[in-house]
């Protein structure tokens, strides 16, 4: 099941590359920025497919703003 989802994610990235191919050819210097964001997105999605309960940024923020948040609790 997880392998199917991983395959789906890679297919989505390939579809994305296909759709943006012409734009990337016109603007090759922006290709590195495109690659950074895409790799980040793909890595995050594969990590979450295999490990869906990974603590997210909300947990990190809750650690920082914990005391203030407790004051606001109804």
């Amino acid at each position, binding site marked *: 099941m997880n392998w199917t989802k991983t395959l789906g994610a890679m297919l989505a990235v390939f579809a994305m590359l296909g759709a943006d191919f012409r734009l990337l050819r016109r603007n090759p210097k922006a290709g590195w920025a495109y690659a950074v*964001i895409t790799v980040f997105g793909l890595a*995050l999605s594969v990590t979450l497919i295999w490990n869906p*309960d990974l603590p997210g940024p909300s947990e990190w923020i809750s650690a920082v703003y914990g005391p203030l948040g407790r004051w606001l609790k109804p």
Partner: protein
Amino acid sequence: MPQKEQITSTQIAMMMFLCIMGTALLMLPGITSAISGNDMWMTPLLGSIAGYLIVWCTWRLHRMYPGDHFIGILQKALGPVAGTFLGIVFVLFHIHITGITMRSYAEFLAGNFFERTPLFFLVASMTLVAAIAVKAGAEAFARCSQIFLPVVLLLILLNFALLLPELKPMNLLPVLGNGMTPVVKGTLVVQGWYCQFMLISFFYPYLHESKRSLRVGMASVAGVMAAMLISNMTLLFLFGNVTAKFNYPFLMASRYIRVGDFVEHVEAMVMMIWVLGAFVKITAFYYVAAAGFANVFRVNDYRLFVYPVGLVIAVMSMWVAPNMQELANFLSTNGTFYILSGYLVFPFLVLAVAWLRRRASARRA
């Protein structure tokens, strides 16, 4: 950034109205009712102060650096190194909030209408539609919001009008029965939504008549305040204290609508219209994320980054919370201070630094 597109001031006002109301009416009444009880109707009134303040702040920044949106202003006001670093931090913060927004929308649909649909499918479909809209350009989806706004407004007003026989104004009492503290707490949560008006900074460069930019923003804040007041009053008069027990009181209220014997099950219409509002909000946030990334990576055209940013937003929306209860809990407690620090405190700090730099260079000259 391609400046060929132009947006009128009315379109910006409409877009920001839908941007805020897209999720405000869904979740806020339940949260503020749990915190402030009967006094939850005061929270949009007091919270609008944050809206006016942030609109004034972004307008001042726009006047100091016309033609730039907030990330561009960061780099010009704070210098290349600090500006880029803080720009990256802000864009990541913004992506987190966009993920939360997308997740709220998907949870709303999945929890009430599509119980057996996988959450990711709802997220992915909205991401795809929003991606197409963002690729089409700011002018295109500004026009979308111009078309969708009357529909959403009609929904809010119709909901109020059709529920009139069931409303009990006595639910308003006692006023300030528990003092001001619960009202202040509720106001803080509502301000977390109002300060999203800060995103107007990303659309100001497209405005072709800069003179009306302040009035436009203020009018939009006033509109949001009025809409929230009407709907909060409707829910309070209908449900009283029980509003706090619902996740989505507005949807529950629409289930009460029964005109004659044939106008029933209005909640399906509510859902369709809510998708319109959520679409405008998600598209606006998506556009800001793409424009922010483009500026941080020093690329002129944001259209290149639309699909990768969409992938990041879709994945982020699955990551932000394990379930609906945790999401609502985060939004009403820690998330409020997080959002306020990013969308309210940070722009004011940037304004202060920019103003000090202006004064220092004026004194030197």
